[in-house]
């Protein structure tokens, strides 16, 4: 246990020290902190807050026990639902655990107990996370019942005591199920599929029924009846037991308290026993299957779609198909565009096709709106710009992560770094362009009077897409640590800022010119400005790319 505690504490201390001693990481951390403060804290003082949240009127009469029971139940039920969704996921061992820890004589039971305790401590903190996010509404509820301090304290204390057991129940259940279904044999594979489908179906049924029945609630009695429906009480059984405990404390009913605690205690004991019985499979599951999923999860966190598809190909879940454009011969740096089209087609292609109907819908909306052609036209351009933004955000970042990852492959090519960057940027802008063309065509077919703006979008939007690629590239090359979560969030913010800065000159020129000349002519100027900025970004970015060292 001493070794495991040493490993955890040193990793945390070194991680924090590393984050605080690197300027780039520190900037990222500060940026993320400011962002969250802005998003979460600012609305507390904003005037948009409802009067209820600012000045809740304290209740004169204590709510009835069934009402309190209902509210407490749903608080626990929401947490239980999230726990349920993560059921069966692997226990999160790292590759280093497999190579370093597993071959040592450290007992797997000890490792399991340590991980249970560690995960338990993390799970216990979950309410604090909700507290940070929902501080104001929670404080509002507190004000609402401020006339009943004794009851308030009782509910709070009993609720926390129950939460200690609920959290432990789910941590133990998580390990018991994970160790059972994530082994490398065929039977557990079948069990896993069965569990995934069942959980999926159950979640859909729960969300659907809660949304349907919840929308019909008009009175408190209906809410209480809804909250006491047996299927919910069974599915969210830990919430039911926790609620029993809380209500028992509130009513001074020892039998209810005992029932709740005993139920939760039995859940913990049986789940723990089940997990311990399977402990011999823990290392095997982490080593045999853990890498693929943990690698995929890490790639998902990075937004690395190409990496995910590569991982799928490695495990045989993805097979490449040859298309007509794969056979084209394109000499020179333009070959980078050809390469990118193939890579995008195999990686983000499926997602782009799923996004296409949505973008067409965006484009059709202004075509159907009963307003002046000029206004609808501007709206069409805005919608198509949104389409470029959405599809670009989905595909471009992943493409540039791939560019940095393949630096050893592309830098030796017989082109200058600026040329490589320019054609890579052009290539990344290719996918969203196709959707713009489709959207513009459909919008014109629906409302032919919009043709000047559709034409303008066909002229300008490809360059907007390219400009967006420029902004994303500049931000990625400046903050290339894709593994650092603080930089990831910060990179998102910087990308938005970069987009605003780079896109503003062209949009400004277009808006001013379109007052005097035909939108298509204004669009030519807009496209020219965009291309000019792209060239400048390519030259600057080329310099950064030329000096980029992935080992640093």
């Amino acid at each position, binding site marked *: 246990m*001493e*070794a495991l505690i*040493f*490993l955890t504490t*040193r*990793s945390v201390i*070194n*991680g924090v020290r*590393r984050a605080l001693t690197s300027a780039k990481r520190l900037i990222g951390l500060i940026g993320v902190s400011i962002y969250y403060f802005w998003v979460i804290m600012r609305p507390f003082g904003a005037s948009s807050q409802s009067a209820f949240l600012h000045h809740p009127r304290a209740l004169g009469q204590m709510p009835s026990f069934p009402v309190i029971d209902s509210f407490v139940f749903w608080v626990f039920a929401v947490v239980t639902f999230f726990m349920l969704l993560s059921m069966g996921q692997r226990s999160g061992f*790292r*590759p*280093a655990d*497999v*190579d*370093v*820890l*597993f*071959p*040592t*004589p*450290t*007992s*797997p039971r000890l490792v399991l107990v340590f991980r249970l305790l560690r995960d338990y401590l993390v799970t216990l903190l979950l309410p604090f996370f909700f507290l940070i996010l929902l501080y104001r509404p929670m404080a509002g509820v507190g004000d609402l019942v401020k006339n009943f301090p004794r009851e308030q304290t009782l509910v709070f204390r009993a609720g926390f005591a129950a939460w200690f057991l609920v959290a432990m129940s789910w941590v133990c259940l998580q390990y018991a199920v994970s160790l059972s279904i994530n082994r*490398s*044999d*065929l039977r557990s*594979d079948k069990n896993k599929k069965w569990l995934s489908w069942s959980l999926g179906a159950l979640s859909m049924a729960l969300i659907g029924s809660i949304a349907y029945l919840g929308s019909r609630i008009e009175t408190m009695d209906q809410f209480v009846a809804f909250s006491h429906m047996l299927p919910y009480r069974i599915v969210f059984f830990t919430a039911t037991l926790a609620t029993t405990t809380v209500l028992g404390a509130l009513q001074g009913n020892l039998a209810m308290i005992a029932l709740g605690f005993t139920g939760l205690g039995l859940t913990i004991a049986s789940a723990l026993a089940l997990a311990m019985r399977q402990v*011999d*499979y823990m*290392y*095997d599951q982490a*080593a*045999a299957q853990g890498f693929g999923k943990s690698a995929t999860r890490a790639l998902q966190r990075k937004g690395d779609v190409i990496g995910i598809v590569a991982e799928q190909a490695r495990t045989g879940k993805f097979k490449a198909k040859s298309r007509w454009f794969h056979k084209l011969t394109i000499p020179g740096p333009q070959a980078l565009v050809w390469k990118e089209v193939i890579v995008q087609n195999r990686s983000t292609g499926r997602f782009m096709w799923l996004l296409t109907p949505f973008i067409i819908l965006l484009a059709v909306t202004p075509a159907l709106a009963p307003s002046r052609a000029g206004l609808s036209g501007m709206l069409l351009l805005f919608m198509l710009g949104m389409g470029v933004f959405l599809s670009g955000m989905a595909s471009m970042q992943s493409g540039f992560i791939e560019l940095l990852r393949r630096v050893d492959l592309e830098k030796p090519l017989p082109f200058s770094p600026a040329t490589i960057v320019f054609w890579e940027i052009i290539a990344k802008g290719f996918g969203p362009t196709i959707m713009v063309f489709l959207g513009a065509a459909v919008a014109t077919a629906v409302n032919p009077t919009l043709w000047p703006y559709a034409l303008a979008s066909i002229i300008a939007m490809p360059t907007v897409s390219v400009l967006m690629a420029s902004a994303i590239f500049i931000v990625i090359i400046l903050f290339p640590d894709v593994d650092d979560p603080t930089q990831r969030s910060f990179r998102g913010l910087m990308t938005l800022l970069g987009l605003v800065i780079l896109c503003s000159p062209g949009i400004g020129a277009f808006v001013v010119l379109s007052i005097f000349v035909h939108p298509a002519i204004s669009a030519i100027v807009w496209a020219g400005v965009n291309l000019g900025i792209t060239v400048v970004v390519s030259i600057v970015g080329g310099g950064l790319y030329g000096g980029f060292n992935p*080992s640093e």
Partner: protein
Amino acid sequence: MLQTFGLVKQYKSFRAVDELELTIQPGEIVGLLGPNGAGKTTALRCIAGILRPDSGQILINGFDVVADQAKAKAGLAFVPEVPSLYELLTVDEHLRFVAMCFKTMATYEAKKDELLDRYDLTEKRDALVATLSKGMKQKLSVACALIHDANVFLFDEPMIGIDPAGAHELKLELVRARNAGAAILVSTHLLDTAEKLCDRVIILARGKKIAEGTVAELQQLSGFEGRSLEDVFLKLTEEPSGSPDLSHH
């Protein structure tokens, strides 16, 4: 001493290791050869107690790796092919962690300095593992294997990524360990190294042992006398179905 009896490891419907029998005596270096996907790494991971065999038995110094894990692993050191290390520990802390796991803190300080010096890691002792080069990580992985008193060593492609001086030092280390009475199993694709270093060689293909013996024995049995181990290996692995079953020799 290391022994496996009928070792089988299956990934779903794919049998990665098939009825593997091997014995490595104290003071012996045995090379584990085979084409890519032959099951070498899986076999080593089963022996190291990382993967659970579907059937068969693995004994390390007479202790069963599955039934008596702690005792079996106490005498074992494993160096993986591409070591994944704890990136947020320093070099010093990494060695310390491994020593703590093996409960060999009494000899840790003296051994650590010697190993850091031998593998050119002294200057990097306070550096985070994340900042090390690939070769340095490999050296640290080897140092971790040597920090406790193991007498059974498993090396999975140990020379990959290490500079010539490091590779030379590692070969000397293997010889030193053999002379001290350790049983060593080395998986490698470097056939010339295997030829020079190993006392015996085991060849795996599709999870099965297809040949075992000294280089001279394999040359004789394959009909390639006087030829290099590379020629013998290619001959034995080119057509597994048609190759002679030499596993009993």
